[in-house]
């Protein structure tokens, strides 16, 4: 019979050791410190609030201090959960076994700007908007642009392998990180680059490509303490164009045509389904009315030098028109694109089945699905969601987005998002389990259609995590477990995330 390693509790001895190692002021056990780092925006079983509170919060300011914390955690066998911005949508930063919460936000320095070689080296606690404010006078920018752009931070983007709204032009986080400094679970500090160790070289074949191994680990394999990032020329022109369609089928075909157009400046193609258009019609102060005949929308954005964008815009508008699209005007296009970071999930748009307004939290599904499967996935996910709404009455269907997902080229696969409102205030264990079952059904549909469970948030949660072995297949998940055990022999770093508690089942550890 397999047994799982149960992590040790954080004792006074652990606290004392932490205080001695990094200083008393950076070690906090007060409830305020712990409550503030309990949840992320993903749906949260608020009726079991205290279960997810860490025991102690540490606020290191250097790689050496991170290393000291991890060594202590190994010594005492207590869990460490790294937390960056805490804006993730899949619980990567939520403690499952309490323990030490390692918050990297104090590490927010810009270490070096190298305009000659087009790199900037930063600590991981820096926010992208702040970085771009710093870079603006130099005519360069760092194009990692998630919905949480004004607040999320670089360490979390690396930890989750984030997706960028303009990634089809500029790449996503993993394409924008040139090299990393990582503290391994056992405390060693290493520098890893693409296929080698040179901090500013983008492509090498000297060694294994270890850099990518540490991007998207959800803090299960290491803590990033420094990153060298790619800089692009600040775009001279940025054009957003939104097109309306009389049916989803038309919009879907048009999405395919636009994303395979070959336009190099095309930064994003985003398809909104009928339910999403309905959701956005729920009154709010920023809503720009759409004609009733519009049932689906495709949003596009072009970024680049002015000459290129001008020429590409002509082609883009012609292509959209030929495939049934109606341009929705400058006001809607520019306005909606400008508010893209804030507008698409608002708690007060939550509705109970009888129309009552309640503040709902937001589940943002983010499977990666190939183009051919999008209509089928859409149908299945809506059917599943609506069934649970009918039965439990505390969920709400906020419609679907399909975002181009392929870096540097918009075709192929899509980040598919169904947004579901959850009235957390009314949750109890029964409805929470209903929610997890809803998630499971969505995940099963993803796998049935050759999709990946998560394009960017991570598969850390119940409802996702247990399907990782299914998606990876026996050999793939076996390898993941081996790597985890090799690097983190005592299972201290973000334990039980990504179903990796299975890496420590006695009979498998062997010996």
């Amino acid at each position, binding site marked *: 019979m397999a047994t799982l390693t149960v992590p040790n509790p954080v004792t006074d001895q652990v606290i004392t050791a932490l205080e001695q190692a990094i200083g008393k002021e950076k070690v906090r056990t007060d409830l305020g410190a712990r409550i503030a780092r309990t949840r992320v925006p993903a749906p949260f079983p608020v009726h079991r*609030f*205290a279960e997810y509170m860490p025991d102690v919060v540490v606020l290191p300011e250097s790689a050496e201090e991170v290393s000291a914390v991890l060594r202590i955690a190994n010594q005492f066998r207590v869990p460490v959960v790294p937390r960056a911005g805490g804006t993730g949508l899949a619980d990567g930063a939520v403690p499952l076994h309490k323990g030490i919460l390692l918050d990297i936000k104090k590490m927010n320095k810009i270490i070096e700007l190298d305009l000659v070689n087009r790199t900037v080296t930063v600590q991981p606690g820096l926010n992208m908007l702040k970085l771009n404010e710093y870079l603006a006078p130099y005519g360069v920018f760092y194009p990692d642009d998630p919905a949480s752009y004004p607040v999320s931070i670089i360490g979390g983007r690396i930890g989750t392998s984030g997706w960028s709204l303009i990634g089809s032009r500029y790449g996503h986080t993993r394409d924008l990180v040139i090299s990393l400094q990582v503290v391994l679970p056992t405390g060693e500090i290493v520098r890893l680059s693409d296929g080698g160790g040179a901090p500013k070289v983008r492509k090498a074949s000297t060694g294994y490509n270890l850099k990518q191994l540490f991007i998207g680990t959800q803090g299960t394999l290491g803590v990033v303490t420094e990153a060298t990032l790619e800089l692009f020329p600040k775009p001279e022109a940025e054009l957003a164009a939104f097109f309306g369609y009389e049916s989803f089928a038309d919009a879907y075909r048009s999405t395919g045509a636009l994303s395979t157009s070959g336009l190099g400046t095309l930064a994003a193609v985003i398809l909104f389904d009928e339910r999403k258009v309905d959701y956005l019609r729920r009154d*709010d102060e920023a809503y720009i009315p759409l004609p009733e005949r519009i049932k689906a929308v495709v949003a596009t954005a072009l970024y680049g030098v002015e000459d290129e964008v001008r020429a590409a815009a002509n082609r883009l508008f012609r292509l959209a028109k030929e495939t049934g699209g109606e341009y929705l005007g400058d006001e809607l296009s520019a306005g909606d694109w400008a508010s893209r970071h804030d507008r698409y999930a608002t708690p*007060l748009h939550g509705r109970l089945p009888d129309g*009552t307004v*309640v503040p709902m939290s937001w589940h943002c599904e983010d499977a990666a699905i190939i183009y051919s499967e999008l209509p089928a996935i859409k149908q299945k996910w809506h059917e599943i969601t609506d069934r649970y709404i009918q039965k439990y009455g505390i969920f709400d269907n906020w419609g679907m987005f399909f975002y181009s997902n392929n870096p540097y080229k918009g075709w192929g696969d899509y980040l598919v998002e169904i947004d579901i409102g959850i009235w957390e205030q009314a949750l109890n264990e029964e409805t929470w389990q209903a929610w997890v079952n809803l998630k499971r059904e969505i995940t099963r549909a993803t796998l049935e259609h050759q999709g990946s469970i998560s394009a960017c948030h991570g598969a850390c949660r119940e409802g996702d995590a247990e399907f990782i072995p299914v998606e990876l297949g026996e050999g793939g998940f076996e390898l993941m477990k081996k790597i985890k055990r090799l690097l983190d022999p005592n299972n201290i770093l973000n334990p039980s995330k990504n179903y990796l508690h299975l890496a420590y089942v006695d009979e498998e550890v062997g010996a």
Partner: protein
Amino acid sequence: MGDEVRAAKPDVAANGHNGVREIEQEFVRDHLLQAYGCFSSGHKFCREVCPVYQVTRNEQHTPTAFHANVVAMEKGAARLEDVAENYSYCTLCGGCELRCPNTLFVGDFYRNRTRTVKLVQDMRAAATKAGLGLWPRWQRWVEATLQGKNEPVLDYENIQPVDPNRVADWAKDLPFSIPQGGENILFVDCEAAYHRTSLPKAVAKILHAAGVPFGLMYEQWCCGGPSLEMGYPDHARYLAEHNVADWKKAGAKRVFVLDPHDYISFVEMYPQFFPPEELPEFVFMIDFVAQLLDEGKIRFVKPIEKTVTYHDPCRMNKRLGKWEAPRKILRAIPGLTFIDVDHVTQWAYCSGAGGGFAVEHPDLAKKIADLRIARAKELNVEALVSACPWSERPLTSSGREQQLEVLDLLELVAEAMGLND
């Protein structure tokens, strides 16, 4: 108008504490719906505009943490005393409320804007009422205010009361005399009356030159705002009642206000204590100067050859949405080169002086002021112009260290009107 938002009944599970006490229940009742608006959003866009978070980088000093604590209290996972101390880490600037997607997109429609300033003030009051004794410096500050009838601005270190008889000493060496009472009253903020006396002098000269008759109160007391902000609403009301009675005795119809903190007390706090017919009209001096300029009642005759930028006082820009008049005035001053930083960017700016923050956390307040000055320095200006005497003390001090002059807008107006010659 929008639909009413419904709240679920509190469902208290055993979450570490045995039940929820009356004190938390009462607090939760007042704040839960708003707290859930934030807790279930989780966007945290407020964070990088928060002046305190920008210097502490500590997630527990953020608006989202303040709201999460309310939910934790509802669920029995925290008691008042477990979390109250965090609420001193706020300058009550209101930037977070503006940057909140709930406010930006749906708050007015659903009549459920995020109200973090109110939450922080109420928590400070609840903690004080519960006798937690968390903030000894605020306690002394409010006690000294009651003793001196004005804030103890002359001694931040030991917090000793000022002499209430000297509240109008600033007017002594003016070339004209100011009567007591009358329809138009000039209310001079504590900081300006005792510390930055050049400001009320400049304002008196402007009004005098514009031919606007005005008087002073018989006995001016602190507006009471800081007492409210530090957790003592009853003391705030006591001070306010005196001022309202004094205005009544003077026959005041209009009160000119030269300080944003006073102004927000008068337009936000006083209406909670008094019916509208008992209150005079409150006129913010910057607005009034802009109006006088429009009407041609004052003129700028003396060029000021300087390159400056402007600091939006938080209470005006972030909490009351007033940011146009000062820019108009600056653009009208001859010789002045004005390099503007727009008011939305300035949602993230603060001097650190507000909400009692500098009294309780002087070291962090200094970091906030240093950051504000550093941002002005990046513009290669010779001076930073502010319109808030509370901001001017820390900004002047940081400005001295970073070699940047800090000016007051109304003093600059008096100078440009040639009133100092």
